[in-house]
């Protein structure tokens, strides 16, 4: 596949992700931070997000499983996941965290458990989509092309 076609595929795929709400303008801000001194910045930060999110989701599962649920701990974990998802533009994960926090404030265990499933679902979805997007990016770079800037979405 030639570079122009790869770049078009990348833009088309990114457009779908923005339109479906998986990503918001903050992802474009992240892309703008990538430069010659950090050519892999997006991959680096997204990988960090995946690592941290997985750990937070594991901790949330364990904490919600306890006999006496520590809602303060849950709130702290969700706050962190909301912050990092918001920073990279993972909009649907961020929104799921906001809903989760509301149930946590009410100490509604059932609501929290439903929200945890929803957050996990949204996280897995955005993870697979970001991995696909970054694979397209790597193909463009390997073919000697420039990664299209997503500034129209910022």
């Amino acid at each position, binding site marked *: 596949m030639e570079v122009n076609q790869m770049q078009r595929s990348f833009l088309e795929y990114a457009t779908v992700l923005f339109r479906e709400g998986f990503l918001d303008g903050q992802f474009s801000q992240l892309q703008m931070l990538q430069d010659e001194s950090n050519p892999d*910045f997006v991959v680096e930060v997204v990988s960090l997000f995946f690592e*941290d999110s997985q750990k937070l989701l594991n901790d949330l599962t364990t904490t919600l499983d306890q006999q006496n649920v520590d809602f303060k701990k849950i709130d702290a974990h969700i706050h962190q996941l909301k912050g990092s998802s918001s*920073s*990279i533009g993972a909009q649907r994960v961020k929104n799921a965290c906001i809903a989760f926090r509301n149930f946590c404030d009410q100490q509604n265990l059932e609501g929290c458990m439903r929200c945890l499933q929803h957050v996990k679902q949204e996280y897995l979805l955005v993870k697979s989509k970001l991995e696909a997007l970054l694979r397209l990016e790597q193909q463009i770079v390997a073919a000697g092309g420039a990664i299209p800037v997503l500034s129209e979405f910022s």
Partner: protein
Amino acid sequence: MSALVVDDDKVVRRMHGKLLTQLGFETNAVENGQEAVDLFTSGESYDFVFMDMEMPIMDGTEATQKLREMGVKSTIVGVTSCNQEAEKQAFVEAGLYACLEKPLTRDAISSLLEQVAKK
């Protein structure tokens, strides 16, 4: 110009740090308010401190209060996604120059720099 990013989230530290570096700041980052206070206590100083509000060990409100009590004159900017007005007010009253919404953007920092230049 130098900036210290104070945030318990690795992703946020990395992104805010890179953004500030691209805007010309010499940047450092720590994980919580206690580490920020320790840095200043050890003699380090920064023109700007971008302080998260909610952090474990020592939160942004307490850290800002302690820094001001120590006589730190840096421009301390709160960074938060919190929508609890009372908590934000307490954060501002602890000694912030301004409070910005998280995540930081290029435009927000440029406006801040213009404001600071005028004072």
